[in-house]
């Protein structure tokens, strides 16, 4: 199901990804944008819409200035309440489908400081929503709450630490095949099980890896895509989801958040089914989130991830459902969402070289979790 005109991903671009601090992200953002535009075989002057997340840093009109674009017919700066970088892609898709614009640039640039939670020394007062959490030591974004979510999943559904470890180990299997990735050394299950507790049972290797870098994609109509440089990758379906009483902590569905509602909407709109998925790019800001999406999307049953993942065989190179084939944010680095969409597009274009999933024709992409879920189905 589309929202008007059928849409496609036609360009993908990255900047360099690294661990340096104190970096001006604007050159990274424009590098990624120019690479995506060139990848599509388009000219900068073709861009008539720009969409970005999270609504601070470089805004859409900042990017317009830096690229010297005469005018934007549509733009969107998405609040940090949305599903990470995919929020901007969902907005771009809707704008292109409706005819608000024809060629949309979507980007996310991020610096290591943005994603890193340790080392902060200045905190705001415990007022507003913080008054119910910060006096108890809850800081570092959602990390302590994510520890509770992992614990609660064990309590509700059983499972083993190794279920989470399979995702962490899998990330390095794939990142070894991705020259862009920041962490490329393999790890073992023992490495995972001996990594330190950050917020027990949440381990260090359950958490993604802050980086500095930028990613961009180009979305246009399927009609226009037919004349461009790359094999088009069509947006078959997309969805947002929030769940009841949306919040990371004080919410109805503490374990899954909005992932189940989002997944239900996604498959209602899709022309394919979970059984048709060839490659899955599922958010891994924390491994708990990846499991939530795999189960919510119906790639396996609720509470059945551990059996399904088969020690990691299912989702690794050569597995029946390769997952997070760029190494995800655990290993490629925390690009904050949009890189899952870019990787899915490259896989369906058949351009992933040594990490290419043979015959990949259907991909599912999911971003964020809790109250801010988003997902897409792509087809080639």
């Amino acid at each position, binding site marked *: 199901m589309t929202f008007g005109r059928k849409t496609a991903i036609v360009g993908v671009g990255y900047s360099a990804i690294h661990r340096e601090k104190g970096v001006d992200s604007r050159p990274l953002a424009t590098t990624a944008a120019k690479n995506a535009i060139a990848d599509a075989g388009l000219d900068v002057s073709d861009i008539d819409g720009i969409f970005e997340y999270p609504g601070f840093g470089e805004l859409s009109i900042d990017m317009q200035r830096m690229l010297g674009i005469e005018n934007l017919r549509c733009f969107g700066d998405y609040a940090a309440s949305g599903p990470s970088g995919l929020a901007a892609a969902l907005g771009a898709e809707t704008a292109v489908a409706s005819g608000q614009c024809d060629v949309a640039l979507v980007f996310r640039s991020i610096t290591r400081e943005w994603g890193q939670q340790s080392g*902060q020394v200045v905190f705001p007062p415990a007022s507003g929503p913080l008054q119910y959490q910060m006096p108890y030591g809850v800081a570092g974004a959602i990390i302590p709450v994510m520890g*509770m979510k992992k614990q609660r999943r064990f309590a509700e559904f059983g499972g083993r630490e190794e279920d989470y470890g399979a995702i962490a180990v899998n990330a390095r299997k794939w990142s070894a095949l991705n020259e862009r990735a920041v962490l490329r050394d393999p790890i073992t299950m023992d490495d995972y099980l001996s990594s330190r507790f950050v*917020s027990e*049972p949440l381990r260090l290797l359950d958490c993604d890896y802050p980086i500095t870098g930028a990613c961009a994609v180009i979305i246009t109509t399927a009609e226009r895509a037919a004349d461009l440089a790359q094999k088009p990758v069509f947006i078959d379906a997309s969805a947002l989801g929030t769940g009841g009483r949306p919040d990371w902590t004080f919410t109805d569905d503490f374990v899954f958040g909005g992932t189940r509602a989002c997944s239900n909407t996604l498959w209602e709109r899709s022309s394919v089914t979970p059984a048709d998925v060839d490659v899955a790019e599922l958010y891994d800001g924390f491994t708990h989130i990846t499991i939530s999406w795999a189960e919510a999307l119906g790639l396996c049953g609720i509470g059945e991830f551990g059996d399904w993942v088969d020690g990691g065989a299912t989702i690794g190179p050569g597995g029946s459902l390769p997952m997070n084939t760029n190494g995800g944010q655990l290993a490629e680095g925390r690009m904050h969402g949009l890189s899952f969409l870019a990787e899915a597009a490259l896989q369906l274009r058949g351009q992933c070289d040594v990490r290419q999933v043979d015959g990949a024709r259907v991909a599912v992409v999911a971003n964020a979790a809790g109250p801010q879920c988003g997902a897409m189905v792509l087809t080639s």
Partner: protein
Amino acid sequence: MDKPEPVPDAVSAFYWEHAARGELAVQGFEDSDFVQFPPNSVAEQVDVSGAPRPVVVSGRGTLYAYTILHQAFHPAFADSVPLAIGLTELDDHPGIRILSNIVDAEIGELRSGLPVEVTFEKRGSQHLPQFRPVRSGDSA
């Protein structure tokens, strides 16, 4: 560095005032049984329009989820780790969960479903609701 104390506002003042009296209260509304936590300036239920009112609860509940914080992201907690943080679901209002530290507890005894009860910790000018395991022999 002192641990942060909560900063009450117009919506939450009742919560901290009750805590200072040794009572746990959640937010209810006139002419309704609906309660919510955290408090808000409006009821998060469309058919509830009465004025907000405090609803004092027993302070008994069960531990819904917990974590043991090993890395203190807020420097005031650097000497307090490992630190137990949990969500307690109230016996009086299932579905209402309050976040606190789990105090007077051994880490090994923590589990989802553990019966807990409220206690209060003085923090600067405020009193924080905290939860602790119910010990056999405690008043029921």
